[in-house]
């Protein structure tokens, strides 16, 4: 119980230190900027609930999507596109379907978004299975296709009736997610994200399917020969489930926060999700923590920009530096430079850490 807490504290400290260094290097006094960030993220109940946790919700869901796929050895870096597909489906169901669906609008919007995300991932899964296309490239390409498809939707079939703004009409109340804490912007999507993390953890840890998924990620050859596991089928199922989670993230964002579809629906949630998953070392419960940390960073960044004049985008660099820090620590540990702690590390990061022969 103590170890994760210590790790979390160390990570948060590292984030603050990296940020302070970056700020000092770009000529901003770090102290007031960090104070502004802290206030924006944790300064009040409202900052915590309406800013940090609202921002963390899509990051946790998309981060969970990435972590699940990576655990199966599927490098799904297309959470962004799957999230947009989910958002588009939710907006379509929420706006066009609400009159006939009534109270079912909101749940069906989420279900539709989840299915759309799985479908979008399914394109890359099919390309991998049938044609051997590297999913690292195909999912990135599909991210751009999804972005332009949303651009077309909000200027074409799904545009608001006045046809002035490139966005969909606003979702009617019945299709919106209810607030989780009355009086704040925190919506039930956050509860779904927490439940999702717990569910994925249970599945991975305590079910046969989860065991097979982990085996495939750790060592596909051994899984096939010793475990008689259908490796491609397990990989495909993990890919689809991953897309479904990312699609749910988009649907939750549309039905819980923006209430409409537009091109800039996601400020790169799907890309940040990769950092969220890697920082959590692909552990579903860790994703909850790292998603919350990044949510706080990004929510606080807005306040930092407003109050201290520091560009908010600086936190993206901090997120990337944290990931590199984790990668570097893992590698140094594998080389015996750092002490090896008895923690289970991520499959791709662990499966290949056989001792590296020094080159003569």
């Amino acid at each position, binding site marked *: 119980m103590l170890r994760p807490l210590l790790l979390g504290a160390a990570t948060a400290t590292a984030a603050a230190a990296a940020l302070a260094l970056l700020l000092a290097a770009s000529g901003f006094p770090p102290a007031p900027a960090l104070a502004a960030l802290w206030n924006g993220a944790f300064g009040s109940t409202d900052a915590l609930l309406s800013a940090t946790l609202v921002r963390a919700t899509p990051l946790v869901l998309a981060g969970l999507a990435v972590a699940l796929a990576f655990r199966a050895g599927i490098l799904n870096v297309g959470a962004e596109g799957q999230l947009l597909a989910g958002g588009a489906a939710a907006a379509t169901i929420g706006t066009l379907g609400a009159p006939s669906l009534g109270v079912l609008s909101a749940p069906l919007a989420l279900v539709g978004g989840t299915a759309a995300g799985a479908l979008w991932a399914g394109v890359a899964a099919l390309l991998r299975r049938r044609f051997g296309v*590297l999913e690292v490239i195909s999912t990135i390409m599909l991210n*751009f296709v999804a972005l332009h498809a949303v651009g077309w939707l909000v200027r*074409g079939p799904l545009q608001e009736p006045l046809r002035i703004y490139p966005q969909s009409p606003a979702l009617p109340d019945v299709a919106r997610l209810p607030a989780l804490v009355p009086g704040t912007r925190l919506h039930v999507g956050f509860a779904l994200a927490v439940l999702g993390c717990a569910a994925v953890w249970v599945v991975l840890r305590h079910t046969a399917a989860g065991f097979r998924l982990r085996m495939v990620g750790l060592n596909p050859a051994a899984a096939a020969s010793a475990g008689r596991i259908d490796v491609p089928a397990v990989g495909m199922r993990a890919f689809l489930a991953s897309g479904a989670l990312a699609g749910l993230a988009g649907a939750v964002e549309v039905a819980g926060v923006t209430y409409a579809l537009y091109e800039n629906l996601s400020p790169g949630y799907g890309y940040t999700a990769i950092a969220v998953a890697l920082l959590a070392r692909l552990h579903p419960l860790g994703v909850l923590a790292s998603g919350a940390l990044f949510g706080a960073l990004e929510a606080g960044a807005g306040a930092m920009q407003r109050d201290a004049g520091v560009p908010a985008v*600086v936190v993206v660099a901090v997120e*990337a530096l944290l*990931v590199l820090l984790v*990668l570097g620590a893992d590698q140094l540990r594998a080389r015996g430079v750092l002490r090896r702690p008895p923690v289970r590390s991520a499959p791709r990061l662990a499966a290949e850490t056989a001792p590296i022969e020094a080159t003569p």
Partner: protein
Amino acid sequence: MTLEPIAAFLEATVRTATPLALAALGETVTERAGVINIGLEGAILAGAFGALVGAGLAGGLGGAALGFAGGALAGLAAAALFACFAVWLRADQIITGTAVTLAALGLTGTLYRTLFGETGAALATPTTPPLSLPGLSALPLVGRALFAQPPATYAVYLLVPALWWWMRRTHAGLALRAVGERPDAAVAAGIRPVRVQLAATLFGGALGGLAGATLVVAQAGTFAEGMSAGRGFIAIAIVVLGRWSALGVAGAALLFGGASALQYLFQAMGWTLPYQLFLALPYLLTLVVLASVSGRVAAPAALGQREL
């Protein structure tokens, strides 16, 4: 029917293909050494920003030259960050590359807003005007496309045969390919794989940086956040389609340039289709191309391998 729209389409094809070819040629060398650098996208973006800074330091044509120098340096820095983790520490190449791209996105965005203001007002940098080769540029149809381009395009013309010859016909090129195919055999032959991979990665980063500089100095004349827009990933697909050969990569880059330039042709012809379709076309083409060639082309055997 006049040939003018077609000539303009070909001209736009070569223009859009130039940065793609630069980045893909660099990645070809990197991958031949067994390193797949997904951080190429970050190197292009860093290069674009480096070009803005370099070109901003001086005006006029000197500014354009400094822009290319700044772009190459910034691309080199991005590749050095990648190499530090992926080549030296032997971390997973795909994951490291993704992190480097994210880092470039965040850092260039921050520095851009810090140095040039919150509004991000469109900064004009000096650009290199097209250089018409006398006589050749007057050729019908292809004259303007091939011989009235910014200097960066001519650099690609020189680079393609040079790289082809270097990889096929020199000892250093053989060493590079040996490291990418059989690192153990390379070691036995007295080659140091880590050094070769380091050099190849840095070379690829520098060319990626030049590709970014081309976007700024030879095309847009300004910088925008995230302006690389997936070109690094497209370049990686181009390397696969071009079968890891300089000549093949040049041809594949032209194909993708053409896909991006189609929108101009369609506008000129007055065909009305949603323009987002054309914006998405290069990405869709990448998928189709990869689906049709993957499994039938042989990547360097040790590509992405972590143990040497």
